[in-house]
C-alpha cells in the first residue's frame, strides 16, 4: 500500500485510565507509523494535559479544533438521551451482552453524531464494569434503600432511586474522602478505576451488580476525515476495527483484575485491598430486571421520545429479550 505523508492530531482520553498509556498512545504513535513505514504519524495528548473535562470534546470536534477525539457517551447524554442507549443501567450484566448491545446500537449513534456534531464514529468501547463500592455491609439490592449513593449518570441514578437509594452527585476527586467520612454510603464506578483511585481503602463491601460499562467513543471530524487519502481512511477503518476488539478484551481483563485486586485476590497491576465481595443473589438478578423495566426503561422512554424508543426496542430491546 502507498500512504502519503500524513500527520494526525488526536485528543486521547484520561491519562489516569490504564487504557490511555497501554492502548491509545501505542496505537497512534507506534502501530500506525510502523504499519505505514513512518508515513502516517500522530500526536496525542490526554484530557488531563489539556485541562479538559470531557464533554466539550464533542463540540470541539464539531468546530474542528480537535480532529480525532475520544470521549464518554455519558458526558453528552444531556444533549441527546440516545447516548444512554447502549449503556442503560442494568441491561448488560456481563461483557458479552454489553458488546452485543454496543454493536447493535452503533448505527443509531453513528447517525446521531454525524447529524449533530458532523463527526464520523470510528469505534465504541467500554471502560469496565461499573459496580457499587460501599463503606458498610450490603447483602442485596434492597439494602440500597435509604443509602446515599454517588452516581455518575442519570440512568444509574434512576436505577438507584428505583431501589430506594438517595442519589448524590459530586466530583470524582471528592468521592474518596466523602466515602471515608460518611458523607455518602456507596459510590458507583468501574472495578479497576475504583481500585486505582484507592476506593478499596475507604470502603468495605463491593457489590458486583453491573450497572453499566461507561462506554467511550472514538470519532473524527468529518471534514478532516474527507481530507485523508483513501488508503489512509481504509487503513484507519481496518485498524480501528481491530483496536475495538482489543479494547473490549482489555475491558474484560480490567474488570476482572479490578474486582480481584479490591477484594484481596490475585493482583498484578492494581493495588491489593481486603474488601468483602458480596455474592450476587439470584433474587437480585430478578429484581434488577424489574427495576430495568419499571424504572430505567420507563424513564429513558420519557427522556428519549417515541421514535428513539422504537429504534432502541428494535435494536437493543430485541437483543435483550432474546437472551
Amino acid at each position, binding site marked *: 500500500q502507498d500512504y502519503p505523508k500524513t500527520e494526525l492530531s488526536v485528543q486521547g482520553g484520561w491519562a489516569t485510565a490504564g487504557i490511555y498509556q497501554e492502548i491509545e498512545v501505542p496505537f497512534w504513535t507506534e502501530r500506525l507509523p510502523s504499519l505505514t513505514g513512518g508515513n502516517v504519524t500522530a500526536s496525542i495528548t490526554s484530557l488531563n494535559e489539556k485541562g479538559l473535562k470531557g464533554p466539550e470534546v464533542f463540540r470541539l470536534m464539531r468546530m474542528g479544533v480537535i480532529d480525532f477525539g475520544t470521549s464518554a457517551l455519558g458526558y453528552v447524554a444531556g444533549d441527546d438521551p440516545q447516548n444512554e442507549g447502549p449503556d442503560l443501567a442494568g441491561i448488560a450484566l456481563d461483557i458479552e451482552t454489553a458488546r452485543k448491545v454496543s454493536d447493535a446500537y452503533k448505527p443509531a449513534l453513528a447517525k446521531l453524531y454525524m447529524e449533530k456534531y458532523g463527526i464520523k464514529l470510528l469505534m465504541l468501547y467500554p471502560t469496565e464494569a461499573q459496580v457499587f463500592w460501599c463503606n458498610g455491609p450490603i447483602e442485596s439490592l434492597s439494602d440500597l434503600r435509604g443509602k446515599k449513593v454517588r452516581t455518575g449518570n442519570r440512568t444509574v441514578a434512576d436505577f438507584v432511586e428505583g431501589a430506594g437509594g438517595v442519589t448524590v452527585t459530586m466530583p470524582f476527586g471528592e468521592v474518596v474522602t466523602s466515602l471515608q467520612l460518611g*458523607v455518602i454510603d456507596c459510590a458507583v464506578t468501574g472495578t479497576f478505576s475504583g481500585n486505582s483511585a484507592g476506593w478499596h481503602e475507604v470502603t468495605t463491601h463491593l457489590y458486583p451488580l453491573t450497572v453499566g460499562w461507561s462506554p467511550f467513543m472514538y470519532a473524527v471530524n468529518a471534514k478532516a476525515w474527507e481530507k485523508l487519502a483513501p488508503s489512509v481512511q481504509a487503513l484507519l477503518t481496518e485498524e480501528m476495527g481491530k483496536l475495538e476488539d482489543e479494547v473490549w478484551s482489555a475491558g474484560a481483563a480490567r474488570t476482572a483484575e479490578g474486582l480481584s485486586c479490591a477484594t484481596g485476590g490475585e493482583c498484578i497491576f492494581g493495588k491489593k485491598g481486603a474488601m468483602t465481595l458480596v455474592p450476587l443473589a439470584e433474587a437480585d438478578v430478578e429484581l434488577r430486571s424489574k427495576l430495568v423495566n419499571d424504572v430505567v426503561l420507563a424513564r429513558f422512554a420519557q427522556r428519549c421520545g417515541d421514535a428513539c424508543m422504537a429504534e432502541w426496542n428494535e435494536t437493543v430491546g430485541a437483543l435483550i429479550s432474546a437472551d
Partner: protein
Amino acid sequence: MIAFTFVALMVLIFLAIPVAAVMGILALSLNFVFTDMPLWRALGEVSWGAFTEFTLLAIPLYILLGELFLRTGIAEQMYTALSKWVSWLPGGLMHANIASCTLFSATSGSSVATSATIGTLAIPQQKKYGYNERLFLGSIAAGGTLGILLPPSINMIIYGVLTNSSIPQLYLAAIVPGLLMAAIFALTILIQSSLFNEGEVKIHATWSERIASLKHLVPPLIICVVIIGSIYSGIATPTESAALGVLAVLALAALRGMLNVQVLLSAFENTMRTTGMIMLIIVFAYFLNFVLSGVGLSSSIKSFMNNLGLSPIWTLIAVIIFYVILGCFMETLSMMIATIPIVAPIIFAAGYDPIWFGVVVMILVELAMITPPIGINLYVVQSIRPRGGISDVIVGALPFVVAMFAMVALLILFPGMTRVFL
C-alpha cells in the same frame, strides 16, 4: 518554542499588561505561530468549563466570609486577646502577629486577606511600642501567607481541581506543616529578637485579663469549627463547608447587631471585585494551558525533563528551584494554573505523593508571595504603612524566606508529617 514563550511573557509583563490579557495574548500568538489548528476556537468551551466548576465557587464564598469577619470587629478583638497571651515573649507583639495570622488562617482561604486584616490591626502598634520596624513588617507579610497553607485555602482548592486530588485530604495533610511553619516563624522572631535586642516594650497582661480575653477567641473558633468540622464530620464537601461558614458569619454578625444592607453591599462589592480578578486570570490560564499542550510545548518540556534522566530527588529539587525563580516574577494564581498541569505529572511519575506535593507547592507559593520583586504580600503590607519604602518590608521578610526554605527541607526529610491525620 520555549524561548519564544519566555520572551513574549517577559515583554508583556514588563509592559504592565493585565495578567489575564498577557496569558490570552501569549496563547493566541503561540497558536498562530506554531500550528494551523484553530485552537483559539476552544476559548468559549474552556472558559465555560472553568466558570461553572462548582469547586471554584468556594473562592467567592471564602472572600465573602473574610469580608464579613473583618466588618463585624471580630478580627480586632481576636488580635487584642492573642496579644495578651503571647506578648511577654522576646519579640513581643510580633508573636501576636503570627498567632493572629495562624488563627485567622483557619477561617480564611486567602493570604492577601490574612495579611491585610492582621496588618491593619498590627501596624499602628509597631511605632507605639518601638519595634524593629523591618522584622515587624516581615512577620505580618510572612504570617499572612499561612492563609493558604492552613485550611481552608483557595490555592489548595485550585491545586485539587488541577490534579484531581481530594481537597479534604489536602487540608488534613497541611495542618501539621502549617502549625510547624507558624512555630518556625515564632522561632525566627525569638532568635532575631534575642540577637538584636531593639528595646521593644513587652506587654504584660495579668492572668485575669488573659482569661477574660478568651471570650473574644470564641467567634473565630466557631467559624473554624463550622468550616473544618463540617468537612470532617462528613456533613459537607469543601465547597459546601464554605457556604456553611458564610451562613455562620452572617448569624454571628446578626447576633452582634452588625448586619445591615450597607455592610452586605460593600462586602458584595469587595467579594465580586476580587473574584472577578481571580476568575479572569483562571479562565485565561486554562486557555493558555490548553494551547500550550495543543502546540506540543507541554510535551516537549516533559520529554526535556525525561531526557535529563534526573533521579526523583533531583527532579524534585529542579522543580523547587523552578518555582522559587518563577515565584519571584509571577503572580501566584497564574503561576499555579499555568505550571501545575505540566509539573505535577512529572513529580507524580517520579513517585511522589500528590497530597504531599500539594503541601510543598503551597509553601512554594507562600514563598513567592514574599520574594521580591513581585510578592503580593509585600505590597499589601507596604500599602498599610503610613511612610517608608518597600525595601524595609523586603528585608524584614528575608528571615522568613529562610524559614520557608527550612520548612521545605523538613517536608522532604519527614514527608510523614503530612500523613498524621490521614
